[in-house]
Protein backbone atom coordinates (compact mmCIF):
# COMPACT_ATOMS: atom_id res chain seq x y z
CA UNK A 1 0.00 0.00 0.00
CA UNK A 2 1.32 3.40 -0.93
CA UNK A 3 2.11 5.74 1.89
CA UNK A 4 -0.42 8.29 0.75
CA UNK A 5 -3.13 5.61 0.56
CA UNK A 6 -2.30 4.51 4.04
CA UNK A 7 -2.28 8.10 5.16
CA UNK A 8 -5.79 8.84 4.04
CA UNK A 9 -7.24 5.54 5.15
CA UNK A 10 -5.76 5.74 8.60
CA UNK A 11 -6.60 9.39 9.03
CA UNK A 12 -10.25 8.85 8.35
CA UNK A 13 -10.57 5.66 10.32
CA UNK A 14 -9.22 7.16 13.50
CA UNK A 15 -11.22 10.32 13.53
CA UNK A 16 -14.16 9.19 15.58
CA UNK A 17 -12.29 6.93 17.92
CA UNK A 18 -10.74 9.34 20.33
CA UNK A 19 -11.40 12.57 22.06
CA UNK A 20 -9.19 15.64 22.10
CA UNK A 21 -5.87 15.06 23.73
CA UNK A 22 -3.99 18.20 22.98
CA UNK A 23 -5.08 20.08 26.04
CA UNK A 24 -4.07 17.27 28.29
CA UNK A 25 -0.68 17.01 26.71
CA UNK A 26 -0.10 20.71 27.10
CA UNK A 27 -0.95 20.53 30.77
CA UNK A 28 1.23 17.53 31.14
CA UNK A 29 4.12 19.78 30.27
CA UNK A 30 6.08 16.96 28.80
CA UNK A 31 8.65 18.28 26.40
CA UNK A 32 11.21 15.75 25.38
CA UNK A 33 10.98 12.22 26.50
CA UNK A 34 13.99 9.98 26.52
CA UNK A 35 13.98 6.28 26.04
CA UNK A 36 16.22 6.03 29.08
CA UNK A 37 13.43 7.45 31.21
CA UNK A 38 10.90 4.83 30.19
CA UNK A 39 9.46 3.13 33.24
CA UNK A 40 8.63 -0.54 33.17
CA UNK A 41 5.04 -1.15 32.20
CA UNK A 42 3.26 -2.99 34.98
CA UNK A 43 1.92 -5.37 32.40
CA UNK A 44 5.38 -5.85 30.91
CA UNK A 45 6.41 -7.87 33.94
CA UNK A 46 3.79 -10.40 33.10
CA UNK A 47 5.41 -11.21 29.78
CA UNK A 48 6.00 -14.89 29.35
CA UNK A 49 9.20 -16.68 28.53
CA UNK A 50 8.13 -17.52 24.98
CA UNK A 51 9.61 -15.34 22.27
CA UNK A 52 6.61 -13.44 20.86
CA UNK A 53 5.64 -13.87 17.24
CA UNK A 54 6.27 -10.84 15.00
CA UNK A 55 2.56 -10.10 14.83
CA UNK A 56 1.98 -9.94 18.58
CA UNK A 57 3.26 -7.63 21.29
CA UNK A 58 4.25 -10.47 23.59
CA UNK A 59 2.93 -8.49 26.54
CA UNK A 60 -0.15 -9.48 28.47
CA UNK A 61 -2.83 -6.80 28.31
CA UNK A 62 -1.26 -5.30 25.19
CA UNK A 63 -3.51 -6.57 22.41
CA UNK A 64 -3.12 -6.20 18.67
CA UNK A 65 -0.64 -6.73 15.90
CA UNK A 66 2.38 -4.39 16.12
CA UNK A 67 2.95 -4.87 12.40
CA UNK A 68 -0.28 -3.05 11.50
CA UNK A 69 -1.36 0.57 11.72
CA UNK A 70 -4.39 -0.56 13.77
CA UNK A 71 -2.27 -1.49 16.79
CA UNK A 72 -3.54 0.76 19.56
CA UNK A 73 -0.17 2.32 20.41
CA UNK A 74 0.17 3.74 16.91
CA UNK A 75 -2.71 6.23 17.21
CA UNK A 76 -0.42 9.16 16.45
CA UNK A 77 2.41 7.52 14.56
CA UNK A 78 3.92 8.72 11.30
CA UNK A 79 6.50 6.51 9.66
CA UNK A 80 7.64 2.96 8.98
CA UNK A 81 6.84 0.46 11.72
CA UNK A 82 10.02 -0.91 13.28
CA UNK A 83 8.08 -4.10 14.01
CA UNK A 84 8.10 -4.71 10.24
CA UNK A 85 11.79 -3.85 9.88
CA UNK A 86 13.52 -6.33 12.19
CA UNK A 87 12.62 -4.62 15.44
CA UNK A 88 9.45 -4.60 17.53
CA UNK A 89 6.98 -2.05 18.79
CA UNK A 90 9.50 -1.07 21.49
CA UNK A 91 12.89 -2.03 20.10
CA UNK A 92 14.96 -0.84 17.16
CA UNK A 93 16.09 -3.11 14.33
CA UNK A 94 19.69 -4.35 14.42
CA UNK A 95 22.28 -1.71 13.71
CA UNK A 96 20.02 1.24 14.43
CA UNK A 97 19.91 3.56 17.40
CA UNK A 98 16.79 4.86 19.20
CA UNK A 99 16.40 8.61 19.24
CA UNK A 100 16.67 10.07 22.75
CA UNK A 101 14.15 12.80 21.88
CA UNK A 102 10.82 12.36 20.19
CA UNK A 103 7.20 13.35 19.91
CA UNK A 104 4.44 11.93 22.07
CA UNK A 105 0.82 10.97 21.74
CA UNK A 106 -1.89 9.58 23.98
CA UNK A 107 -3.58 6.33 22.99
CA UNK A 108 -6.28 4.24 24.61
CA UNK A 109 -5.45 0.61 25.32
CA UNK A 110 -8.56 -1.41 24.45
CA UNK A 111 -7.58 -4.11 26.95
CA UNK A 112 -7.88 -1.97 30.07
CA UNK A 113 -9.58 1.15 28.71
CA UNK A 114 -6.77 3.34 30.05
CA UNK A 115 -5.06 6.12 28.16
CA UNK A 116 -1.30 5.78 27.89
CA UNK A 117 1.27 8.38 26.91
CA UNK A 118 3.20 6.94 23.98
CA UNK A 119 6.67 8.04 22.94
CA UNK A 120 7.30 7.48 19.25
CA UNK A 121 11.06 7.10 19.34
CA UNK A 122 12.59 6.89 15.88
CA UNK A 123 15.31 4.38 15.09
CA UNK A 124 18.23 5.97 13.30
CA UNK A 125 21.37 5.30 11.32
CA UNK A 126 20.13 3.61 8.16
CA UNK A 127 18.07 4.60 5.16
CA UNK A 128 14.27 4.47 5.37
CA UNK A 129 13.01 0.95 6.05
CA UNK A 130 10.23 1.35 3.51
CA UNK A 131 7.84 -1.18 5.10
CA UNK A 132 4.50 -0.74 6.88
CA UNK A 133 4.06 3.01 6.56
CA UNK A 134 1.44 4.39 8.95
CA UNK A 135 0.24 7.95 9.44
CA UNK A 136 -2.50 8.18 12.04
CA UNK A 137 -2.03 11.77 13.24
CA UNK A 138 -4.18 11.85 16.38
CA UNK A 139 -3.18 14.97 18.26
CA UNK A 140 -0.53 15.78 15.66
CA UNK A 141 0.43 19.46 15.70
CA UNK A 142 2.36 21.76 13.34
CA UNK A 143 6.11 22.40 13.28
CA UNK A 144 5.78 25.28 15.76
CA UNK A 145 4.46 22.81 18.38
CA UNK A 146 7.34 20.36 17.95
CA UNK A 147 6.71 18.00 20.86
CA UNK A 148 3.39 17.04 19.28
CA UNK A 149 4.60 17.05 15.67
CA UNK A 150 5.00 13.66 14.04
CA UNK A 151 6.35 15.15 10.78
CA UNK A 152 9.69 16.09 12.32
CA UNK A 153 12.70 13.87 11.81
CA UNK A 154 13.39 12.95 15.42
CA UNK A 155 16.72 11.30 14.70
CA UNK A 156 18.39 14.00 16.77
CA UNK A 157 21.06 13.47 19.39
CA UNK A 158 21.93 10.20 17.70
CA UNK A 159 25.17 9.23 15.95
CA UNK A 160 23.40 9.59 12.62
CA UNK A 161 20.41 11.75 11.69
CA UNK A 162 19.20 9.19 9.14
CA UNK A 163 15.61 8.06 9.84
CA UNK A 164 14.92 4.32 9.56
CA UNK A 165 11.64 3.52 11.36
CA UNK A 166 9.42 4.38 14.34
CA UNK A 167 8.51 2.61 17.58
CA UNK A 168 5.65 3.19 20.02
CA UNK A 169 6.91 3.11 23.61
CA UNK A 170 4.64 3.22 26.65
CA UNK A 171 5.97 5.84 29.04
CA UNK A 172 3.12 6.10 31.49
CA UNK A 173 -0.59 6.18 32.16
CA UNK A 174 -2.41 9.42 31.46
CA UNK A 175 -3.74 10.40 34.84
CA UNK A 176 -6.09 13.19 33.87
CA UNK A 177 -9.41 12.52 32.19
CA UNK A 178 -9.49 13.45 28.55
CA UNK A 179 -11.72 16.25 27.39
Amino acid sequence: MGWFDCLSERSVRNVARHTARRSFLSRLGVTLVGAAAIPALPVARAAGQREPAPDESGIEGDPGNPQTCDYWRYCSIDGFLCACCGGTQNSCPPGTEPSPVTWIGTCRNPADGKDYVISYNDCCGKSGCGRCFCNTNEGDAPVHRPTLDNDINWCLGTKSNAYHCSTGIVIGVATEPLR
Partner: protein
Amino acid sequence: MKNRLGLFLFLVCFNGLAAAELAVETPTTKTLPDPSGHWMWVSDLVFNAMEGGKAYLIDGDSGQMLGMLSTGYFFASALQDSDYQTIYAPEVYMSRGTRGERTDVITLYDPKTLEPIDEIIIPPKHFSGIPVVGHAAISSDDRFIAVYNFTPAQSVSIVDVANKKFLHEIETPGCAEVFATGSSAFNMICGDGAMLTLQLDDAGTVTTARSKKFFDPQADMIDDKMAPYGTSWAFFTMSGKVQMIDMANGTPVFAEPWSLFSPDQLADSWKLGGYQYATICESTGELYVLVHRGGKYTHKSPGVDVWVYDIKTKVRKRMISLSHAATSIHVTQDENPLLFSADAEHSGVRIYDANSGKHLHYVKGLASNPILFWPVRP
Protein backbone atom coordinates in the same frame (compact mmCIF):
# COMPACT_ATOMS: atom_id res chain seq x y z
CA MET B 1 19.85 -10.06 -68.26
CA LYS B 2 19.78 -11.84 -64.96
CA ASN B 3 23.11 -10.29 -63.98
CA ARG B 4 21.89 -6.84 -64.94
CA LEU B 5 18.76 -7.23 -62.80
CA GLY B 6 20.87 -8.32 -59.86
CA LEU B 7 23.16 -5.32 -60.26
CA PHE B 8 20.14 -3.02 -60.48
CA LEU B 9 18.62 -4.41 -57.25
CA PHE B 10 21.98 -4.19 -55.49
CA LEU B 11 22.38 -0.54 -56.44
CA VAL B 12 18.82 0.29 -55.38
CA CYS B 13 19.28 -1.38 -52.02
CA PHE B 14 22.72 0.06 -51.42
CA ASN B 15 21.68 3.57 -52.34
CA GLY B 16 18.56 3.24 -50.26
CA LEU B 17 20.54 2.19 -47.22
CA ALA B 18 23.06 4.92 -47.76
CA ALA B 19 20.29 7.51 -47.85
CA ALA B 20 18.85 6.27 -44.50
CA GLU B 21 22.17 6.18 -42.68
CA LEU B 22 22.36 8.44 -39.63
CA ALA B 23 25.08 10.97 -39.08
CA VAL B 24 27.72 10.17 -36.50
CA GLU B 25 26.99 11.87 -33.17
CA THR B 26 28.90 13.05 -30.13
CA PRO B 27 27.21 13.44 -26.74
CA THR B 28 26.34 16.93 -25.57
CA THR B 29 24.64 18.43 -22.54
CA LYS B 30 21.57 20.59 -22.87
CA THR B 31 21.15 23.94 -21.22
CA LEU B 32 17.80 25.46 -20.44
CA PRO B 33 16.23 28.27 -22.44
CA ASP B 34 15.01 31.47 -20.82
CA PRO B 35 12.75 30.54 -17.94
CA SER B 36 8.99 30.57 -18.19
CA GLY B 37 6.46 31.49 -15.55
CA HIS B 38 4.83 28.17 -16.38
CA TRP B 39 7.84 26.27 -15.07
CA MET B 40 7.46 24.62 -11.69
CA TRP B 41 9.89 22.87 -9.37
CA VAL B 42 8.72 19.99 -7.23
CA SER B 43 10.75 18.37 -4.47
CA ASP B 44 10.85 14.62 -4.04
CA LEU B 45 11.12 13.49 -0.44
CA VAL B 46 12.11 9.95 -1.54
CA PHE B 47 10.74 8.65 1.73
CA ASN B 48 12.26 5.19 1.29
CA ALA B 49 15.75 6.63 0.87
CA MET B 50 15.74 10.24 1.97
CA GLU B 51 19.48 10.66 1.58
CA GLY B 52 18.70 10.78 -2.14
CA GLY B 53 16.52 13.90 -2.19
CA LYS B 54 15.70 15.44 -5.55
CA ALA B 55 14.01 18.38 -7.18
CA TYR B 56 12.42 18.14 -10.62
CA LEU B 57 11.78 21.00 -13.03
CA ILE B 58 8.61 20.72 -15.12
CA ASP B 59 7.36 22.77 -18.05
CA GLY B 60 3.64 23.12 -17.44
CA ASP B 61 2.87 24.00 -21.07
CA SER B 62 4.37 20.86 -22.55
CA GLY B 63 4.10 18.58 -19.53
CA GLN B 64 7.75 17.68 -19.97
CA MET B 65 10.44 17.27 -17.35
CA LEU B 66 13.24 19.76 -18.05
CA GLY B 67 15.88 18.76 -15.53
CA MET B 68 16.67 17.77 -11.96
CA LEU B 69 18.77 18.66 -8.95
CA SER B 70 20.25 16.11 -6.54
CA THR B 71 19.72 17.74 -3.20
CA GLY B 72 20.77 15.45 -0.37
CA TYR B 73 19.08 14.32 2.81
CA PHE B 74 15.48 15.22 3.77
CA PHE B 75 15.36 17.94 1.13
CA ALA B 76 12.53 20.47 1.42
CA SER B 77 12.79 23.13 -1.30
CA ALA B 78 15.16 25.68 -2.82
CA LEU B 79 15.08 29.47 -2.94
CA GLN B 80 15.74 31.79 -5.87
CA ASP B 81 16.91 35.38 -6.13
CA SER B 82 14.45 37.94 -7.46
CA ASP B 83 15.46 37.65 -11.14
CA TYR B 84 16.11 33.89 -11.13
CA GLN B 85 19.85 34.20 -11.69
CA THR B 86 20.77 31.78 -8.91
CA ILE B 87 19.04 28.90 -7.16
CA TYR B 88 19.91 28.48 -3.47
CA ALA B 89 19.27 24.97 -2.17
CA PRO B 90 19.65 24.25 1.57
CA GLU B 91 21.02 20.72 1.59
CA VAL B 92 22.17 18.18 4.17
CA TYR B 93 24.80 15.51 3.55
CA MET B 94 26.38 12.78 5.60
CA SER B 95 29.86 11.71 4.59
CA ARG B 96 28.92 8.02 4.31
CA GLY B 97 25.44 8.46 2.93
CA THR B 98 23.37 7.62 5.99
CA ARG B 99 26.17 8.03 8.54
CA GLY B 100 29.42 9.86 9.08
CA GLU B 101 30.04 13.56 9.48
CA ARG B 102 27.07 15.77 8.69
CA THR B 103 27.59 18.84 6.53
CA ASP B 104 24.86 21.39 5.83
CA VAL B 105 25.31 23.63 2.84
CA ILE B 106 23.42 26.10 0.75
CA THR B 107 24.32 24.97 -2.73
CA LEU B 108 24.19 27.62 -5.46
CA TYR B 109 22.96 26.33 -8.82
CA ASP B 110 23.01 27.99 -12.21
CA PRO B 111 19.36 27.99 -13.40
CA LYS B 112 20.41 27.50 -17.02
CA THR B 113 22.84 24.61 -16.58
CA LEU B 114 21.52 23.27 -13.25
CA GLU B 115 25.15 22.80 -12.28
CA PRO B 116 26.34 23.58 -8.74
CA ILE B 117 28.49 26.70 -8.98
CA ASP B 118 29.30 27.38 -5.35
CA GLU B 119 28.27 26.54 -1.80
CA ILE B 120 27.96 28.17 1.59
CA ILE B 121 28.63 25.96 4.61
CA ILE B 122 26.13 26.53 7.41
CA PRO B 123 25.81 24.94 10.89
CA PRO B 124 24.70 21.30 10.67
CA LYS B 125 21.36 22.06 12.27
CA HIS B 126 18.88 22.66 9.44
CA PHE B 127 15.39 21.43 10.28
CA SER B 128 14.61 18.05 8.76
CA GLY B 129 11.18 16.55 8.48
CA ILE B 130 8.25 16.41 6.12
CA PRO B 131 8.94 19.55 4.10
CA VAL B 132 7.35 22.82 5.12
CA VAL B 133 7.64 26.02 3.13
CA GLY B 134 9.03 27.88 6.14
CA HIS B 135 12.21 25.83 6.47
CA ALA B 136 14.26 28.67 4.88
CA ALA B 137 13.71 32.05 3.23
CA ILE B 138 15.54 34.71 1.23
CA SER B 139 14.96 38.39 1.90
CA SER B 140 13.22 40.34 -0.85
CA ASP B 141 16.38 42.37 -1.49
CA ASP B 142 18.32 39.12 -2.02
CA ARG B 143 20.79 40.09 0.71
CA PHE B 144 20.16 37.50 3.40
CA ILE B 145 19.01 33.91 3.70
CA ALA B 146 17.57 32.62 6.95
CA VAL B 147 17.59 28.88 7.66
CA TYR B 148 15.40 27.40 10.39
CA ASN B 149 17.32 25.04 12.70
CA PHE B 150 15.95 22.31 14.94
CA THR B 151 18.27 20.12 17.02
CA PRO B 152 15.70 20.16 18.92
CA ALA B 153 16.90 23.56 20.14
CA GLN B 154 15.32 26.15 17.85
CA SER B 155 17.43 28.75 16.12
CA VAL B 156 18.03 30.50 12.79
CA SER B 157 21.21 30.65 10.72
CA ILE B 158 21.73 33.98 8.97
CA VAL B 159 23.62 33.88 5.66
CA ASP B 160 25.13 36.83 3.77
CA VAL B 161 24.17 36.10 0.16
CA ALA B 162 26.42 38.66 -1.57
CA ASN B 163 29.53 37.52 0.29
CA LYS B 164 28.44 33.88 0.28
CA LYS B 165 29.13 33.60 3.97
CA PHE B 166 27.41 32.27 7.08
CA LEU B 167 27.16 35.18 9.52
CA HIS B 168 25.74 33.93 12.79
CA GLU B 169 23.09 31.92 14.55
CA ILE B 170 20.17 33.44 16.45
CA GLU B 171 18.49 31.43 19.20
CA THR B 172 14.70 31.47 18.83
CA PRO B 173 13.32 29.31 21.65
CA GLY B 174 9.67 28.44 21.14
CA CYS B 175 9.55 29.83 17.59
CA ALA B 176 9.77 27.97 14.31
CA GLU B 177 9.93 28.45 10.54
CA VAL B 178 11.06 31.59 8.75
CA PHE B 179 9.22 33.86 6.33
CA ALA B 180 10.83 36.61 4.32
CA THR B 181 9.32 39.96 5.09
CA GLY B 182 10.19 43.42 3.87
CA SER B 183 13.69 44.13 2.66
CA SER B 184 15.77 42.67 5.47
CA ALA B 185 13.54 40.98 7.95
CA PHE B 186 12.17 37.54 8.72
CA ASN B 187 9.21 36.43 10.78
CA MET B 188 8.67 33.22 12.70
CA ILE B 189 5.67 31.54 14.33
CA CYS B 190 5.83 30.83 18.02
CA GLY B 191 4.03 27.95 19.65
CA ASP B 192 2.29 30.23 22.13
CA GLY B 193 0.45 32.10 19.37
CA ALA B 194 2.79 35.06 18.81
CA MET B 195 5.09 35.99 15.96
CA LEU B 196 8.80 36.73 16.28
CA THR B 197 10.35 39.35 13.97
CA LEU B 198 14.06 39.21 13.15
CA GLN B 199 15.11 42.63 11.83
CA LEU B 200 18.54 42.75 10.17
CA ASP B 201 20.77 45.79 9.74
CA ASP B 202 23.28 46.21 6.91
CA ALA B 203 25.80 43.99 8.66
CA GLY B 204 23.19 41.31 9.24
CA THR B 205 23.00 41.96 12.97
CA VAL B 206 19.62 40.90 14.26
CA THR B 207 17.26 42.58 16.65
CA THR B 208 14.14 40.69 17.65
CA ALA B 209 10.62 41.77 18.54
CA ARG B 210 7.66 39.70 19.58
CA SER B 211 4.12 40.40 18.41
CA LYS B 212 0.88 40.07 20.26
CA LYS B 213 -0.64 36.60 20.22
CA PHE B 214 -2.66 36.26 17.04
CA PHE B 215 -3.97 32.73 17.54
CA ASP B 216 -4.92 30.48 20.41
CA PRO B 217 -3.03 27.20 20.10
CA GLN B 218 -5.52 25.46 22.36
CA ALA B 219 -8.61 26.60 20.50
CA ASP B 220 -7.69 26.76 16.80
CA MET B 221 -4.05 26.18 15.90
CA ILE B 222 -2.36 27.92 13.00
CA ASP B 223 -1.12 25.20 10.66
CA ASP B 224 2.34 25.09 9.08
CA LYS B 225 1.04 25.26 5.48
CA MET B 226 1.22 28.87 4.28
CA ALA B 227 1.09 30.72 0.99
CA PRO B 228 2.81 33.99 0.03
CA TYR B 229 0.92 36.82 -1.64
CA GLY B 230 2.75 40.07 -2.40
CA THR B 231 4.12 41.42 0.85
CA SER B 232 1.71 39.23 2.81
CA TRP B 233 1.47 35.62 3.77
CA ALA B 234 -1.76 33.69 4.13
CA PHE B 235 -1.86 31.46 7.19
CA PHE B 236 -4.61 28.94 7.92
CA THR B 237 -6.06 27.58 11.13
CA MET B 238 -7.05 23.96 11.51
CA SER B 239 -10.72 24.93 11.27
CA GLY B 240 -10.19 26.71 7.95
CA LYS B 241 -9.83 30.35 8.94
CA VAL B 242 -7.57 32.53 6.80
CA GLN B 243 -5.19 34.87 8.61
CA MET B 244 -3.52 37.30 6.21
CA ILE B 245 -0.40 38.90 7.66
CA ASP B 246 1.23 41.83 5.90
CA MET B 247 4.96 41.90 6.53
CA ALA B 248 5.98 44.72 4.19
CA ASN B 249 7.72 46.64 6.95
CA GLY B 250 9.05 43.65 8.79
CA THR B 251 6.66 44.01 11.68
CA PRO B 252 3.60 41.82 11.09
CA VAL B 253 0.24 43.50 10.55
CA PHE B 254 -2.63 41.12 11.18
CA ALA B 255 -5.80 41.34 9.07
CA GLU B 256 -9.17 40.26 10.36
CA PRO B 257 -9.42 36.47 10.02
CA TRP B 258 -12.13 35.02 7.79
CA SER B 259 -13.41 31.52 7.25
CA LEU B 260 -13.14 29.47 4.08
CA PHE B 261 -16.09 27.41 5.20
CA SER B 262 -19.63 28.39 6.06
CA PRO B 263 -21.23 26.89 9.20
CA ASP B 264 -23.09 24.44 6.96
CA GLN B 265 -19.87 23.40 5.23
CA LEU B 266 -18.15 22.93 8.58
CA ALA B 267 -21.08 20.83 9.76
CA ASP B 268 -20.65 18.84 6.57
CA SER B 269 -17.03 18.13 7.64
CA TRP B 270 -15.25 20.14 4.95
CA LYS B 271 -11.60 20.60 5.88
CA LEU B 272 -8.26 21.64 4.50
CA GLY B 273 -5.94 18.71 3.91
CA GLY B 274 -2.61 17.73 2.44
CA TYR B 275 1.03 18.76 2.61
CA GLN B 276 0.76 21.95 0.57
CA TYR B 277 -2.94 22.69 0.43
CA ALA B 278 -2.98 26.42 -0.29
CA THR B 279 -1.55 28.56 -3.07
CA ILE B 280 -2.22 32.09 -4.31
CA CYS B 281 -1.84 33.45 -7.85
CA GLU B 282 -0.24 36.91 -7.69
CA SER B 283 -1.72 38.09 -11.00
CA THR B 284 -5.31 37.09 -10.42
CA GLY B 285 -5.43 37.41 -6.63
CA GLU B 286 -7.04 33.99 -6.40
CA LEU B 287 -6.53 31.65 -3.46
CA TYR B 288 -6.66 27.92 -4.26
CA VAL B 289 -7.22 25.48 -1.39
CA LEU B 290 -7.28 21.69 -1.44
CA VAL B 291 -10.26 20.47 0.56
CA HIS B 292 -11.96 17.24 1.53
CA ARG B 293 -14.70 15.98 3.80
CA GLY B 294 -13.19 14.35 6.86
CA GLY B 295 -13.04 14.41 10.60
CA LYS B 296 -10.56 15.63 13.14
CA TYR B 297 -6.96 14.71 12.44
CA THR B 298 -7.50 14.41 8.68
CA HIS B 299 -5.41 17.53 8.12
CA LYS B 300 -2.92 15.63 5.96
CA SER B 301 -5.48 13.72 3.95
CA PRO B 302 -5.52 14.17 0.17
CA GLY B 303 -8.42 15.70 -1.70
CA VAL B 304 -9.89 15.95 -5.17
CA ASP B 305 -11.64 19.28 -4.62
CA VAL B 306 -9.94 22.63 -5.10
CA TRP B 307 -11.94 25.68 -4.07
CA VAL B 308 -10.94 29.01 -5.55
CA TYR B 309 -11.49 32.26 -3.64
CA ASP B 310 -11.00 35.91 -4.47
CA ILE B 311 -8.44 36.87 -1.84
CA LYS B 312 -9.80 40.43 -1.60
CA THR B 313 -13.55 39.82 -1.57
CA LYS B 314 -13.15 36.51 0.32
CA VAL B 315 -15.81 35.01 -1.91
CA ARG B 316 -15.55 31.54 -3.42
CA LYS B 317 -15.50 32.01 -7.20
CA ARG B 318 -15.42 28.47 -8.50
CA MET B 319 -14.64 24.87 -7.68
CA ILE B 320 -12.27 22.56 -9.51
CA SER B 321 -12.66 18.81 -9.39
CA LEU B 322 -9.27 17.19 -9.89
CA SER B 323 -9.14 14.03 -11.96
CA HIS B 324 -7.02 12.38 -9.26
CA ALA B 325 -6.60 12.98 -5.54
CA ALA B 326 -3.75 15.28 -4.59
CA THR B 327 -1.67 15.93 -1.50
CA SER B 328 -0.07 19.17 -2.70
CA ILE B 329 -1.05 21.89 -5.15
CA HIS B 330 0.56 25.01 -6.57
CA VAL B 331 -0.55 27.56 -9.11
CA THR B 332 1.64 29.59 -11.47
CA GLN B 333 1.71 33.33 -10.99
CA ASP B 334 0.51 34.69 -14.37
CA GLU B 335 -2.83 35.85 -15.81
CA ASN B 336 -3.53 32.41 -17.31
CA PRO B 337 -2.33 30.19 -14.54
CA LEU B 338 -1.69 26.48 -14.51
CA LEU B 339 -2.48 24.36 -11.47
CA PHE B 340 0.01 21.66 -10.55
CA SER B 341 -0.95 18.76 -8.28
CA ALA B 342 1.03 15.97 -6.65
CA ASP B 343 -0.82 12.77 -7.43
CA ALA B 344 -1.65 11.02 -4.16
CA GLU B 345 -1.95 7.53 -5.60
CA HIS B 346 0.59 7.35 -8.38
CA SER B 347 4.08 8.68 -8.79
CA GLY B 348 3.73 11.81 -10.82
CA VAL B 349 2.48 15.32 -11.19
CA ARG B 350 -0.69 16.48 -12.92
CA ILE B 351 -1.21 19.82 -14.59
CA TYR B 352 -4.57 21.55 -15.02
CA ASP B 353 -5.84 24.75 -16.59
CA ALA B 354 -6.43 26.72 -13.40
CA ASN B 355 -9.33 28.67 -14.91
CA SER B 356 -11.30 25.85 -16.50
CA GLY B 357 -10.04 22.99 -14.36
CA LYS B 358 -9.32 20.99 -17.51
CA HIS B 359 -6.71 18.27 -17.07
CA LEU B 360 -3.83 19.04 -19.44
CA HIS B 361 -0.89 16.78 -18.62
CA TYR B 362 0.13 13.85 -16.48
CA VAL B 363 3.88 13.81 -15.88
CA LYS B 364 4.01 10.12 -15.16
CA GLY B 365 6.60 8.47 -12.93
CA LEU B 366 8.06 11.76 -11.81
CA ALA B 367 9.22 11.66 -8.17
CA SER B 368 8.63 8.90 -5.62
CA ASN B 369 6.96 11.33 -3.21
CA PRO B 370 6.34 14.70 -4.85
CA ILE B 371 5.55 16.86 -1.86
CA LEU B 372 6.40 20.54 -2.18
CA PHE B 373 6.12 22.78 -5.23
CA TRP B 374 7.87 26.08 -5.74
CA PRO B 375 7.30 28.13 -8.87
CA VAL B 376 9.94 29.65 -11.10
CA ARG B 377 9.58 33.42 -10.85
CA PRO B 378 11.49 34.77 -13.89
